[in-house]
């Protein structure tokens, strides 16, 4: 195999496959496996040098090189690695120590980052992003912390480009110019800006989809989602679970913003009907890209249908949903309600998680076909040993993402998935796929009422504002 092509595959898979999803999901499994294996060997060699935590783990396990897929498994990080810092560091504004921690998880050298005088999470993230190429993705946790994933600018741009490229294409058809590089209206049922969770994508999405035209971006809420407030909400849940809510210390800086945040919360009451009106009137017949989690898509759809309204976008629009039910109970037939409201537009389902790159789109059979740069593993949930890559296996999902550049590509997720390793999917794609049912292990047991997931962020944001309101009255 030519050196150049492996390097292209791992640095810019879209280029390697000629920007078309058809070859991307038609490559012979053996051929892809060899490509992936080569890329994995190279990426590990690179990251062993450049990521301290990978080096330490490899040294501890006495691994200097990998060869077979399963060799990488002991070197994978649990997804919790990105939130394993002590939350006291944030409470005490020890951004120097937070930076030192993050430094060990990324290829970039953060030792020179100046965090002097930082007083909030958002400020810290700002400092990191202005002084390094990092683009940090955060996501909520269950125990009073949140994940901090050190992605960078190149991968964020590439990722968004891949996104746009894929949502409009159809497998088995040569992509048209109109599908590869469209300029569309973006419908974003979320906060208009912010750093937390999915809101981090907003500037990149605008850049990629709207051709930089601000008026083509349609957020649900006008305010910014506030990371510090999300952290407070997480902490409140954790404190309530410990019976320590009364002792929660409130950051005076956040308390000072109480009125601003309450005003935002009140404004949101009127924004939902306005948003539905905008979707069903102003955007009627327009070509749009819309993405959100199932439950938000569902609640907007059912609220719209209750008013007798329907969104009638141009038929070459693209809607992407997913995110699992994320702890929220959706009624049976929720997809039917979504389809009814959004009419004749293709609605794709995707599976993704922040610790790696890419959205895996569901085919007509409902299986999530894995993007070629992601090497899948199914681990025994008890022993974390990789299960044989044969037959139909259910277990903990783990991946090695060869494209990953600023952080380690090996991650063990909290999800239970099923892969049929042998039979090809009737949809015609050659790629391996996850069966449609994906469960979070944490949701498989009782007593997880304190869980915060990204789908509930709006509610959580509100809880925190209500707390601020009570705290000072």
């Amino acid at each position, binding site marked *: 195999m030519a050196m150049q092509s492996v390097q292209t595959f791992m640095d810019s898979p879209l280029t390697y496959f000629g920007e078309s999803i058809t070859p991307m999901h038609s490559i012979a499994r053996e051929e892809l496996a060899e490509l992936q294996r080569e890329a994995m060997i190279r990426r590990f060699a690179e990251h062993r040098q450049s990521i301290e935590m990978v080096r330490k783990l490899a040294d501890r396990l006495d691994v200097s090189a990998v060869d077979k897929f399963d060799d990488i498994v002991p070197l994978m990080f649990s997804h919790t690695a990105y939130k394993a810092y002590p939350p006291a560091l944030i409470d005490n504004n020890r951004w120097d120590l937070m930076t030192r921690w993050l430094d060990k998880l990324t290829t970039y050298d953060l030792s020179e980052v100046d965090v002097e005088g930082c007083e909030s999470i958002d400020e810290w993230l700002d400092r990191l992003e202005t002084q390094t190429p990092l683009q940090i993705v955060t996501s909520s946790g269950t*125990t*009073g912390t949140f994940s901090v994933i050190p992605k960078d600018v190149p991968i964020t741009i590439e990722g968004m480009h891949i996104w746009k490229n894929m949502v409009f294409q159809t497998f088995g058809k040569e992509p048209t110019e109109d599908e590869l590089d469209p300029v569309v209206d973006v419908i974003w049922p979320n906060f208009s800006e912010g750093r937390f969770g999915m809101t981090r994508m907003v500037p990149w999405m605008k850049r990629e989809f709207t051709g930089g035209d601000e008026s083509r971006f349609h957020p649900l809420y006008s305010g910014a989602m506030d990371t510090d407030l999300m952290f407070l909400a997480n902490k409140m849940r954790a404190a309530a679970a410990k019976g320590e809510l009364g002792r929660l210390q409130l950051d005076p800086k956040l308390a000072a913003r109480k009125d601003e945040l309450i005003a935002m919360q009140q404004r949101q009451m009127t924004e939902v009907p306005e948003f539905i009106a905008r979707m069903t009137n102003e955007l009627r017949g327009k070509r749009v890209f819309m993405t959100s989690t199932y439950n938000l898509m569902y609640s907007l759809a059912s609220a719209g249908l209750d008013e007798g309204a329907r969104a009638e976008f141009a038929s070459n629009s693209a809607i992407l949903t997913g995110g699992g039910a994320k702890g929220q109970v959706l009624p049976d037939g929720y997809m039917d309600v979504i389809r009814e409201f959004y009419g004749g537009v293709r609605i794709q389902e995707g599976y993704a998680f922040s610790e790696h790159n890419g959205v895996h789109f569901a085919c007509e059979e409902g299986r999530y076909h894995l993007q070629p740069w992601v090497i899948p593993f199914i681990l025994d949930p008890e022993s974390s040993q990789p299960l044989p890559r044969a037959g139909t296996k259910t277990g903990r999902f783990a991946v090695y993402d060869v494209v990953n550049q600023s952080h380690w590509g090996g991650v063990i997720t*909290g999800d239970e998935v099923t892969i049929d390793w042998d039979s090809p999917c009737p949809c015609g794609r050659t790629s391996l796929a996850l069966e449609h049912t994906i469960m979070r*292990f944490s949701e498989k047991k009782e007593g997880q009422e304190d869980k915060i997931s990204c789908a509930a962020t709006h509610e959580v944001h509100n809880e925190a504002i209500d707390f601020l309101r009570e705290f000072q009255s």
Partner: protein
Amino acid sequence: MTAFTVPLFVRGQLITDDLVPFASRLDHSFQAPDPAKHAHALPLRSPSEMADLYAVSFDEILDVLTELGVALAFERNPYIQEAYEACLVSNPMPESILRTGYVALPTMFSRESMRELAEAQVGIDYLEGWVPRRLLDGREIRVRAFGARTLHIPAGNGGLVAGITVLRNALTRSDATVKAPSNDPLTAIAIARTLADIAPDHPITKHLAVGYWKGGDEQVEEQLYKPEHIEKIVAWGGLASVKHVTRYIQPGLELIALDPKRSGTIIGPEAFEDEDTLREVAKRAACDVGAGNQEGCVNARVIYVLSGTDEAGLQKANRLGQLVYESMVGLPEFISTTPKVVDRTLLENVEGSRLTEDWYRVFGGEHAEGAIIVSQLDEPVHYSTLLSGRVANIVPVDSIDKVTDAVNAYTQTIGIYPESLKAELRDTLSLFGAQRLTSLGYAASVNFTIPQDAMEPVRRMCKWVVEEHCSPDRVLPLWESRDLTPMPTTM
């Protein structure tokens, strides 16, 4: 799938009709009479029907209970054996530890220990009759502790909770409706059936009903949880179960909440005096963590160590961590084993800590056998509320203030080493909310005679009724008092 039947026991009668399936906690199912159809049969028709309990003496009650204890012997009692079998598939506790609980069950019903419990928590005289006393104002009072119509929602961690529930009910001459837990669906029924075999018509058999319905099943609970049927609810266990019961609380229906609790440990600098002491301390701490596989509220989870947080202090804490881990995995099988069920979210977090060497050292845990995480700063892990299945967190601290900050109303037991530190801390820790301070190593050694969760539940299960005798020549008659002005206006 293992299927078994959880009958309804209603005051001596066994109901096995109208079976419907239920899921238990560990992917197994069982069947039980449709609770919606049978709930009406559970409560006592009228409070006057409790009169029969007062026709028997306390000693006679003890006679029956003593006989019950003998009959509960694990190797001879098929009901108990079946209850144990049901736990094997519905309870996260492994075989060897479950067996320990069932083997210990009869000792709870020994005459001496029952007398000790009744005397310490209520006073046998008060249970047996009217206890007279003269007050300063001249009146004579007589106080008696009456039983109440009580609903019990016991925890399912081992058969002992079912045992103590039946025992407390009988000793207080109460009327019990017991809602069996899904993770121990049969022990209360087994005890009730044994009781019915040895004393079919005895009032304490007639005042016991046991059944299963899903906690939160409004169809059942709205019928049952009313002041006309029930005066008190004794609710053990999880936040969810206690929380949903609170909606039924109203005047006339009292909640005795044995809330979800967590326990901790404080180890003084004396532990590091010499190697032998350190090993002894590690062994005791390991027992507090590992006993019953850390399924109980009494088990140690976060262990504060006054080792200091400088380099030397951290080294001491790490050494202790290693020794606690070694002792814990060496505990005998009837006390502790590799957990049958592990919380995977917890283990994911432990793996996160393992990678974060700057702040955590993790001993063990690679085979879900249990782990000791030693913080390298004076803060517990952020997931401390998840600690279970023999995973504990050692936290080195410089001063005791850091520890008292972590003690609150959710703190049940604190195991302390050495004894002098316990004496020094007991007044402060109690103010913060701690409920039981014990010698390190004894957290899981539970005695039901002592106060529980900072109250005396058996005393609270009773209705304390007073009869006053006021003779006008001794107690000032209100109707004859001449000048009312000095009396408070609120009278």
